[in-house]
């Protein structure tokens, strides 16, 4: 990641990532009942405890479902570029943790499959007036062994 990039929000994923510390989503774990939440949440929706600790989530999972976004979402709240490129979104099941909604790097629904292995990555999705790229998290299909 270069100097003129910034994350879309603080506390969402580890930043800045480097070769020895690849990006991870920042979740939370309820101290009382163990419920894992993303984004990190102080209040537990299972046991109503208000004590939690940070937990970095798994960067690997499987695709639970997906869809595509073929038209530019209403702005605001969307702040991506005016020149719209369709993208895909899905839920990735992080085993033993939770299912997280994210953009997918593969926009073609024919190339996506329920159950396929996915890996966390970061993608620039918008550019500010001063040239700063805004980065968000996404999941990408994992290359098969040896391919």
């Amino acid at each position, binding site marked *: 990641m270069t100097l003129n990039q910034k994350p879309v929000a603080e506390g969402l994923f580890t930043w800045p990532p480097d070769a020895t510390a690849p990006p991870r989503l920042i979740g939370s774990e309820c101290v009382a009942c163990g419920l894992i939440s993303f984004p990190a949440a102080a209040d537990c929706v299972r046991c109503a405890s208000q004590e939690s600790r940070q937990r970095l989530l798994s960067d690997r999972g499987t695709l639970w479902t997906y869809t595509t976004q*073929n038209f530019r979402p*209403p702005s605001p709240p*969307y702040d*991506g570029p005016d020149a719209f490129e369709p993208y895909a979104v899905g839920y990735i099941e992080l085993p033993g*943790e*939770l299912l997280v909604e994210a*953009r997918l790097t593969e926009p073609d*629904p024919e190339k996506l499959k*329920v159950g396929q292995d996915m890996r966390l990555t970061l993608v620039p999705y918008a550019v500010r007036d001063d040239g700063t790229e805004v980065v968000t998290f996404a999941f990408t299909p994992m290359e098969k062994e040896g391919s």
Partner: protein
Amino acid sequence: MTEAVIIGAGLHPFGRFPGKPALDMGADAVRLALADAGVTWPQIQGGYIGSYEVANPDAIVGRLGLTGVPLRGVFNGCATAGTAIALAARAIETGEHDLTIAIGLDKHPRGAFAADPSVAGIPSWYGQTGLFLTTHFFGMKINRYMHDHGISHETLARVASKNFRNAAGNDKAWRRTPLTPEEVLASPVLNYPLRQFMYCGPNEGAAALILCRADQAHKYTGKPVRVRSTALRSRRLGAFEVQSPSFPVGEPVASPTVDASLAAYESAGIGPEDVDVAQLQDTDAGSEIIHMAENGLCKDGEQERLIAEGVTEIGGRLPVNTDGGLLGNGEPIGASGLRQIHEIVLQLRGTAGDRQIPGTPRVGYTHLYGAPGASAVTILST
């Protein structure tokens, strides 16, 4: 406890009415309902009114008459009308009032809803990065459902085609041009696997229902429609719901539709096998398919065969969305569920005209689902 019955129903057409305020559409619907019931506005003792766009829908008294009537505003997203009818019925059942009204009205601008995520308790990045779209949920839910239960793209198209065909026979519907399944499948994909003609659109309209004590209904009508049960449920932890940045792993948890449906059947003493006609939330063609099973009207996966056989058509064993549903009528949020009940009232009275279902229907069923994971069911009977 006394029972509430519907003695009057009024519907302002759904569509686009430039220059006509939502309150005026609501007042028209109320006057139609009053005339249908044979009562006057000053006789109404209390009511519930729902709207997304109108800040003070109870201001409708300024159009109808300043009688001092207690008129309470209600809002539960797409389940708003379910709340209005439930409370209007409850006021009668508990003896608070003898004659009540449920009103819904709305006037949405063109295009998808574009709220600030913060009002839904969701962080800004979710909207900024293009995840805050309810249509994503519907695309993802039916995509997974098709994978698990063998539902085809053709079946999605058949549902949309049926609802536009039904709307074509309804002079108060918005989208009255019939479309073949092939034409539906030729429209552009918006959120895979859902296409343009598989989605409903936000629009404008109003509806009203007059309710009274069952033991006084004979004064007004020979064909009262009984409100057998109403149920509203919100989402439980672990259910896959609209606008969720994440949800827990583990055994699948039923949607609030399943919870509301089971509660409504139990309290009505009526089972899904007794339902003669149903109005199910068809935000999109996939939702109608899923909601058939979530409301107990079939098993998961049976829809593929049932829809191919025409079971949900007006002449079929279980007609669904006989007035065109949300696909044909659009969704003015506050009014949508009362439009559903208006249609059931016509069907149970046998006065639905060209779209009247055959035989002598006795039980009608209505269902709403919307953000942030709320569902309302109403069971009605003769």
